[in-house]
């Protein structure tokens, strides 16, 4: 078992012929992911890495039963790509693209909800179910198979933390990069619900940062409903308020907590928070 994706997941890559799209398609395929289709308008009928290209997601679903999509198209077209995937009946859409307007994501999320599609991202590294499948852009060599579930708002910071977890021997079950934007698809809580049921996952690391209150919402949820140990790292303690720190969603605004306040909140709910990324391993060993 694993969450969101596994060996059976049938992936369609939207924007497969672009620079990033083709590069990561190869990497996903090398990892063993079943990439069954690509979509690029006007290129229907062609092939990349022996993967058939279609003009539309609908055709990809009909012809090769794609059920999961990963989106690499530029920000201007990413929203339309998500709507297309949802309407075509795709069950899980992972949007790597950065720079998607917030108002568009408000609509996409509601529409996806109504149609029963799960959205990961945008502006995220995707998902890796270690040893089974990768629908994302993470360097998979650092992911050693293990028992720790990871949920994160960022990319490289997650790799940094995952490397320590892998090196420690604990290893990772599934890692989900939910994205650094203010409005994203699945949030910490949504992914936690998956880890709760996932027998492979014995503990969870929650990698958060400044901006919004998703970490606090997750902490409330964990206190009441989540039965596996959780530890955390929160980035942004040295970031000045009122400034967006790279991620569109990473900003301390009036009415939201600073990193220190977030950390205090999490700890008040019994979640240990690491001061330094590599401390995560020690905290994990303490609670497991």
């Amino acid at each position: 078992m694993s969450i969101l994706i596994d060996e059976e997941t049938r992936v369609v890559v939207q924007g497969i012929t672009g620079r990033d799209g083709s590069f990561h398609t190869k990497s996903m395929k090398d990892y063993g992911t079943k990439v069954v289709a690509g979509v690029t308008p006007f290129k229907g009928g062609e092939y990349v890495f022996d993967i058939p290209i279609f003009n539309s997601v609908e055709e990809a679903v009909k012809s090769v039963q794609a059920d999961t999509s990963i989106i690499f198209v530029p920000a201007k077209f990413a929203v339309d790509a998500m709507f297309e995937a949802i309407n075509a009946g795709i069950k899980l859409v992972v949007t790597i693209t950065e720079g998607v307007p917030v108002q568009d994501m408000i609509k996409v999320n509601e529409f996806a909800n109504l149609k029963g599609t799960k959205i990961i991202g945008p502006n995220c590294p995707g998902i890796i179910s270690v040893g089974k499948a990768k629908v994302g852009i993470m360097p998979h060599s650092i992911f050693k198979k293990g028992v720790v579930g990871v949920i994160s708002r960022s990319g490289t910071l997650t790799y940094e933390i995952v490397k320590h977890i892998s090196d420690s021997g604990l290893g990772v079950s599934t890692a989900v990069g939910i994205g650094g934007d203010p409005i994203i698809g699945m949030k910490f809580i949504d992914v936690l619900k998956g880890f709760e049921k996932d027998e492979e996952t014995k503990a969870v690391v929650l990698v958060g940062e400044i901006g919004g209150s998703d970490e606090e919402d997750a902490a409330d949820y964990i206190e009441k409903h989540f039965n596996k140990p959780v530890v955390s790292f929160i980035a942004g303690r040295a970031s000045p308020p009122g400034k967006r720190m790279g991620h569109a969603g990473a900003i301390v605004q009036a009415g939201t907590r600073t990193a220190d306040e977030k950390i205090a909140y999490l700890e008040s709910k019994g979640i240990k928070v690491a001061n330094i990324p590599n401390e995560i391993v020690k905290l994990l060993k303490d609670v497991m």
Partner: protein
Amino acid sequence: MNLQEYQSRELFKKFGIPVVDGSVASSVEEALKIAETLGYSVVVKAQVLTGGRGKSGGVKIANNEEELKEKVSKILSMEIKGLKVNKVLIAKAVQIKKEFYVGFTVDRSSKRNVLIVSSEGGVEIEEVAKNDPEKILKVSLDPLLGMFSYQAKNASMFLTPNKDVISKISTILEQLFRLYISIDANLVEINPLALLSDGSVVALDAKIVVDDNALFRHPEIETMRELTEEEKLEIEAKSKGFTYIKLNGSIGCLVNGAGLAMATMDLVKLLGGSPANFLDIGGSSNPEKVASAIEMILRDKNVKAILINIFGGITRCDDVANGLLEAIKKVKVEIPIVVRLTGTNEDIAKKILENTPLIYVDSMVDGVSKVVELVNRG
């Protein structure tokens, strides 16, 4: 992107939202001309993108020419929270009977737009939320259909029992929402929305934040940008493909990924140093981009050392190391540079950097410790 009050006012007018007569001035002469057409008394308001302008002395009333000259020249020479005042808004003074707060913003938790109104206007809404939460009404808006008229009407009824005022506020809310959506805003706020003694309802302030990610479809908004010195740097960085935010410390940071960049800064601070900047070099790190980034870090004369923290991921570390070497050939660097590189071919990278001035370290913690030590040692 934050708009100045006088810019937001123009958008308000375009969408039919009543504002007090007035215009923006960059000099005493301009201000006098405007005041002449308006008639005294007028209000002089510093145009800077920060709250608390009133408390800082950036908002004054002038009852005649003499007072106007004095107050405009004073405000135009001010700095408010580090921001230079280049423009003032000259607006007709009005008789206020009651002040409200109305605004639309994105609620991240519910993933929806929300309408927020409060019968307590003219003070910061977060203060009201803390002290008088019952004076605030938050209305969640449908993600696909937006605000319904009945929601605007009910929110207005929350503010006042006066039927005429309700209908005026209702209309303003509908217009404000139309503006909010049509410019892809993350926030539009009227604080205060004032009921005047003549029975009219007008916006006495105007705050708009537009979604940077949506500016590609609003070129007319993009042209309104008035950059501070710091923002000019940020924009320059963006144009070169990386994200830079200036801070006040002495350790320049160059990191890939926003989360790791924040975490690096945090660690610098934790270990006793202070970061000079946030810098996310982004996905690909070609030598040219790395050189521009180092060059930008070095423009900050407070910087005493640079920490490069790259979690290469799929990128090959030897490529990055070669890029770094090329980069420091282009930019003359006289301060220590500590480099941490993780990813494929780390070992080769280490060798490449062996006989160079770059100080190679094996981990993020080592790198931060090293750079803090170098700086603190002086």
